[in-house]
């Protein structure tokens, strides 16, 4: 960040790890994650809040990290793609994205998965139209939408099955 006379101390938890960081108050959560904490799984697509590639969770809700000031995340619990699953133990949604070929270039994928994870906890309806609407803030230029919707639906249905069982 450009030199600023005013540094601000924030404390936040990212993927379970507590960080105390001095930041320029203008820093976005996205830049904090990528440039200070080296969590590069979250992508900068447009930096305008229009593409969804930077979607992360703050206190359990999905937000666009490029439009979120890091300073507002003082005391917050942040979860990024790095905190979802590991190559050895994927989250079921990550498994579903692979099984349904829900990506091509992969650049939007972190955001898609973070967005879908949150959407599954939000009050959307069960049909494809609802899932498509819930996911319409995440663009995929490769056009893998049919498969993304299929992946989300698979996880939604199995979660529903679990609840009903």
């Amino acid at each position: 960040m450009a030199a600023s006379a005013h540094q601000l101390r924030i404390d936040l938890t990212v993927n379970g790890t507590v960080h105390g960081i001095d930041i320029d108050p203008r820093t976005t959560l996205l830049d904090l994650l990528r440039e200070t904490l080296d969590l590069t799984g979250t992508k900068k697509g447009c930096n305008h809040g229009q593409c969804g590639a930077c979607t992360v969770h703050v206190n359990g809700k999905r937000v666009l990290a490029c439009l979120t000031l890091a300073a507002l995340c003082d005391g917050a619990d942040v979860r990024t793609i790095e905190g979802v699953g590991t190559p050895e133990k994927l989250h079921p949604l990550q498994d579903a994205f692979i099984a349904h070929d829900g990506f091509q270039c992969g650049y939007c994928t972190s955001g898609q998965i973070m967005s879908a994870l949150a959407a599954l906890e939000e009050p959307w309806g069960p049909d494809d139209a609802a899932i498509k609407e819930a996911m319409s803030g995440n663009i995929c230029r490769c056009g893998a939408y049919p498969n993304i919707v299929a992946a989300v639906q698979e996880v939604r249905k199995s979660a529903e099955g679990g609840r009903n069982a």
Partner: protein
Amino acid sequence: MNRHDTPQAPGATDPGSGPARARAAAGTRPIKGGVSKDMQHDSAIKHVTGRATYCDDIAEPAGTLHAYLGLSTRAHARIMELDFSAVQRAAGVVGVLTAADIPGVNDVSPTGRNDEPVLAEQKVEFWGQPVFAVVAETRDAARRAARLARITYEDLPHVLEPDVARAQGGPYVTPPLTLKRGTAETELLKAPHRLKGEMRVGGQDHLYLEGHIAFALPGEDDDVTVHSSTQHPTEAQHMVAHVLGVPSNAVTVNVRRMGGGFGGKETQMNLFCAVAAVAAKKWHRPVKIRPDRDDDMSATGKRHDFVIDYEVGFDDAGVICAVKADFTARCGFSSDLSGPVTDRALFHADNAYYYPNVLLNSHPMKTNTVSNTAFRGFGGPQGVMAAERIIEEIAYALGRDTFDIRKANFYGTETRNVTPYHQTVEDNIAPRIVSELEQNADYQSRRQAVLDWNAKGGVIRRGIALTPVKFGISFTATWYNQAGALLHIYTDGSIQLNHGGTEMGQGLNTKVAQVVAEELQVDIDRIKITRTTTEKVPNTSATAASSGSDLNGMAAQDAALQIKERLTDFAAEQWQTDRSNIRFIANAVQIDEETVPFADFIRQAYMARVHLSAAGFYKTPKIHWDRATGKGRPFYYYAYGAACSEVSVDTLTGEYRVERTDILHDVGRSLNPVIDKGQIEGAFVQGMGWLTTEELWWDAQGQLRTHAPSTYKIPLASDRPRIFNVALVRWSENRENTIKRSKAVGEPPFMLGISVFEALSHAVASVAEYQTCPRLDAPATPERVLMAIERLRRG
């Protein structure tokens, strides 16, 4: 799917699963990841866990500087004064680069026309043209400081629209092309029916989710290494060398993967690579450059927009007698790839239809806009749009279904099979594909239902269309149709594969690895696919023209076969047997009755001093093209497909949605059906976006006003067809000897999106009882659809 397989680690043990298990498994089951199998993308696990490294994710060494471009704010002007005093004083600024700092040649023209400066000198020729670069300790500092420059301009007249440029007698950026067969002009006069019209087809921004980026690290002497997100590392290498004034052997360009390319990173990355490299050498520190999305969209080229003037003569049955058309393209301020792009528009102005007499001219106009460039289809889709408009014109003039006119004009197999560029179509399967889709999509009864619905005269109108695609495969610059690969087998039996193609999500690396796995009969997990680098495979072609697997798959196969040959020689000598008794079976080699696990076999071969590395090479046979005469065989083969789309249109607002799309597409004998299906779906969605919501809009001063996803709308999840059926043509195999008889898949399905455009046109036509061709221009935004409806209603 084998999604839990971990990537193998380098080491002395068998990379598959340990020597004991490897022996047990050897030869007893088919290999994993051979050709024609569904195989997940090689980076699948990395993609879903956020661990795939893109250029911007590479850890920056201490001392890394950041460059940021300063762009012109005039469409055409002389630069009178550059004042960087405030920039230099800004916090964190290390310096400013201008054209004067370029040690070599200030030019990144990919075709050697010397018309594309890295940084503008004396004058600017479009709004958004890079004029200078600020280099600073942080990206933020560089970005803020770039705003502080004061540039004094003296305005010059500018021209933005290609038809205006042509009317003014403006210059071409590159020589035009004429394709001619028969006597179109006289046959037009003799034809029972004759029509002429104009069509405007808009451009398209690539909007790759990962924007342009380059990261240069200075080395000793002249050396520099550039990491970039480029489809064409070899050209980036040449351009950096050219701009630095050093030989190509001093420059290394690396690309592991791209976050989307679509043609936008075929030449447009050169400028960023050059700026980063010049700065890195000047300050002897690593330099990264990554523009903001707005600057990326303002400063880099897009799909060419065209104004197409056409004239067609036809008989009472709707069979075409003659076609004459002029393709006037907005090329922007420099030639870039406008020559081959406008050529390809002419090559596809026939789509799948036979023109007995034809005269086609391209007009690649210079305009004061960003220099347009490659984009999936490379001019071809614009040509196909003209063909489909001509079909519509005939259908509405005769009161027939457009589909009947399409069928009446398909290329034949034995006759009526010569293209406007005098290539004979030898592999025509369009009629069969279209006929199968007509059945599968239940076209006829659904069309009747659409007509019945519209006859009720309601506000919501429906439209349906079934359109074909025939797309020529090969670079029309014949020399680009070559590729190299480098294959190493290490003594533990692990394999490293490198080829000249680049991975941008299309699954190229996976497909090429499948080819090697098949030839050597080893599990694909044993093969490590490395980044593309000019150090390993030199003089490569762009990963473009859908040619990635065709070219690089063959080169990798060549390398694998060379090593296999040596290994067979070794085994014959070592085991004292005939070569015919040696078989490569799954993860093992069978010699007479003995089965030797692959890793053991390789170790023995090494001990016997067998060369376990090979460079493979391939060049596409049969092709030739003489541009001066407009004759030749520019394409090795054609890929085919068809799509049927049905839409609903609100005639009060022009809003619409795609109710259903059915696709049947030809990829020959698929190397990887799941990846090919993804390519087809994605290409369709992107093609639909081009023709519907994606609108580029320049103001009168020449500033692009749709320079971010906030104003430039690409399809969302909610825009995909509500019912979407995609199938591969299972019976197809390439008649030519391509890699495992597959066909290219990157570009051809893009044009399946045209079915949506044609269906919209059909719905619009309903408001005037299908008596008038709607002459819808592209993109058919809701505004355009509404205007067309109003126009037709007024009569």
